[in-house]
């Protein structure tokens, strides 16, 4: 980042009207927009690192036996891939980057409630990330436990688990503080007239997410602290030889980590709920239901953690309860999908890049979510648990869902902050490549899982060769799309055509202020008089 990326032609904006300059004007800034961009670039860097690891994983799996790395390297690599993707990219990604950039503007505020705490969160995140990175090169080498850190293996392996886990702990603390900050902001700093019924749906989803961050993350914190205690002090709480129970670890881990998947998807759903109406020029269908279902997902989603443990030896009663509740969470997601599709009806649809990503989100998330139902049903999960099917499922929801929504948000909102935009044609080509590559890569994995190939397998039996090769080739198409997309996007942001205040014709508050916005966002405090998707009142052509 730094001032090098700063668009030169803009007059007075948050890029240049602060007292300080240079790098310190960024890393010590308390302006939510600067912090948002800090998050955005750090998160994106980690994404690129982890994505490269993902591609290496695929190359290794291209053929049976050793292809480019040994088993220990492979195991470390998928662990680091998972940890970085989950804890350094997707969980901090939406709230940290777009939550910070957009949410305060959308509610008509000048900043978040605790701007200094906000900066502190970012620093904690960087600090935690640095620890995780350090853990890869020190001690016994990168952790090889999988991102789930299951005991007893994580207590025995000689790799550098303690340090990595500590890094994740710190990042979790950062996530908690962000959540506290956002809930307070949304309660306290809404502009005049910005009633709860007029909150943009992205804000609603950030609100629901923030609650999950507050209530679930501490459990992760204590769980990780326990791993460290087990390793360093030998407390034996999960060690069967000393009265412990390894399944209790799994409970604690998933009490956080299932709700965490909603930290990943809820803001993504918020983005989609904002993008689809704008590109259809039509109010969102069933605003209340969508807002409410975000809360419902957050609430019900906290009660289903046991569905990751169907084969673990958990009691059958628990399986009954958790399987049932898993199906209950699917309902609010279904509501959203139906409402989004209905929004298209009799609109005026323009297929620009943000919309293409949003529509493909609908498809990919549906596939991912529906395969989630297979996993939620007790009988079928037994067969596909811990296979490539699960890997397929979560890449569909995380990458196809949250990831594509992230790309949609990048195309939709970044021009606001740079005042310039990307070129449309390459963006569409990149989208098409990614969409095709994505499906080839991950659909093959799901088929592999159905055929019985377990996950976290460095090597496999010859019968799985063809599909693995297909999947690997798909990942290359995906790579080319991603590279094209990023190059085009950032070229555009720096050198592209200038955009006006409201390039897409949006009705939410961020489109009523200049691009790029001034530091204080609103020159005078806004008074909100209409809903977020009321396109008739906003004076759009």
């Amino acid at each position, binding site marked *: 980042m730094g001032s090098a990326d700063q668009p030169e032609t803009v007059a007075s904006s948050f890029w240049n009207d602060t007292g300080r300059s240079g790098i310190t004007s960024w890393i010590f800034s308390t302006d939510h927009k600067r912090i948002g961009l800090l998050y955005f670039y750090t998160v994106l860097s980690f994404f690129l690192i982890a994505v490269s690891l993902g591609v290496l994983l695929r190359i290794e799996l291209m053929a049976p036996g050793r292809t480019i790395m040994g088993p220990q390297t492979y195991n470390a690599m998928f662990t680091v891939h998972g940890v970085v993707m989950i804890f350094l990219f997707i969980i901090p990604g939406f709230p940290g980057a777009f939550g910070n950039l957009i949410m305060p503007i959308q509610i008509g505020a000048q900043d978040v409630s605790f701007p200094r705490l906000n900066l502190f969160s970012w620093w904690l995140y960087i600090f935690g990330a640095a620890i995780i990175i350090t853990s890869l090169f020190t001690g016994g080498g990168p952790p090889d436990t999988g991102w789930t850190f299951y005991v007893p293996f994580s207590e025995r392996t000689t790799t550098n688990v303690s340090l990595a886990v500590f890094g994740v702990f710190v990042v979790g603390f950062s996530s908690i503080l962000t959540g506290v900050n956002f809930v307070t902001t949304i*309660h306290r700093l809404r502009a005049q007239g910005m009633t709860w019924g007029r909150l943009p749906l992205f804000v609603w989803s950030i609100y629901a997410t923030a609650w999950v961050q507050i209530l679930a993350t501490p459990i992760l914190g204590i769980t990780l602290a326990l791993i460290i205690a087990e390793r360093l002090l030998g407390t034996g709480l999960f060690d069967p030889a000393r009265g412990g129970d390894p*399944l209790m670890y799994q409970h604690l881990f998933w009490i956080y980590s299932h709700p965490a998947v909603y930290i990943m998807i809820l803001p993504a759903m918020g983005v989609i709920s904002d993008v689809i109406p704008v590109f259809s020029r039509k109010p969102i269908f069933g605003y209340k239901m969508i807002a409410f279902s975000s809360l419902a997902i957050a609430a019900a989603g906290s*009660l289903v953690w*046991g569905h990751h443990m169907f084969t673990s*030896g958990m*009691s059958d009663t628990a399986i009954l309860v958790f399987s049932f509740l898993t199906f209950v969470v699917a309902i609010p997601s279904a509501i959203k999908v139906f409402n989004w599709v209905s929004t298209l009806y009799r609109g005026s649809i323009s297929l620009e890049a943000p919309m293409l990503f949003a529509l493909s989100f609908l498809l990919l998330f549906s596939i991912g979510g529906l395969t989630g139902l297979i996993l939620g049903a007790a009988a079928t999960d037994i067969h596909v648990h811990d296979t490539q099917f699960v890997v397929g499922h979560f890449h569909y929801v995380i990458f196809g869902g949250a990831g594509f929504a992230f790309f949609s948000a990048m195309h939709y909102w970044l021009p606001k902050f740079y005042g310039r935009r990307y070129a449309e044609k390459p963006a569409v080509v990149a989208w098409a490549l990614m969409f095709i590559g994505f499906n080839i890569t991950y659909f093959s994995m799901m088929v592999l899982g159905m055929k019985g190939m377990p996950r976290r397998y460095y090597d496999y039996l010859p019968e799985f060769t063809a599909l693995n090769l297909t999947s690997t080739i798909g990942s290359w198409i995906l790579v080319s799309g991603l590279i094209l997309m990023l190059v085009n996007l950032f070229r555009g942001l720096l050198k592209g055509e200038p955009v006006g205040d409201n390039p897409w014709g949006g009705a939410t508050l961020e489109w009523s202020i200049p691009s790029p916005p001034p530091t204080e966002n609103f020159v005078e405090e806004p008074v909100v008089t209409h809903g977020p998707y009321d396109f008739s009142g906003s004076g759009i052509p």
Partner: protein
Amino acid sequence: MSEQHHIISYGKLISVWLGLLFLTALTVWVSRLDIGVGHVWGSLAIASVKAGLVITFFMHMRYEGRLLRWLLFFALAVLAIFIGFTFFDVLYR
């Protein structure tokens, strides 16, 4: 500052303190009784009353708006569910 602040008198705080001391004595006394598993629930009940007193008076919850009370209730309920649901496994294994 626009909001009204309730001031709690020293007298009231001290009586709450005395109440807490009394409950502490009570819970120690109860723990000497021979009532089996009743201890678990008995001492937890007393502890909850004590925590309630601290929250209501020392932490001014009594004088806060509805929002905070609801949020507190909500958070406690979620924690109870986290612990309670784990027992679907632990109890029936």
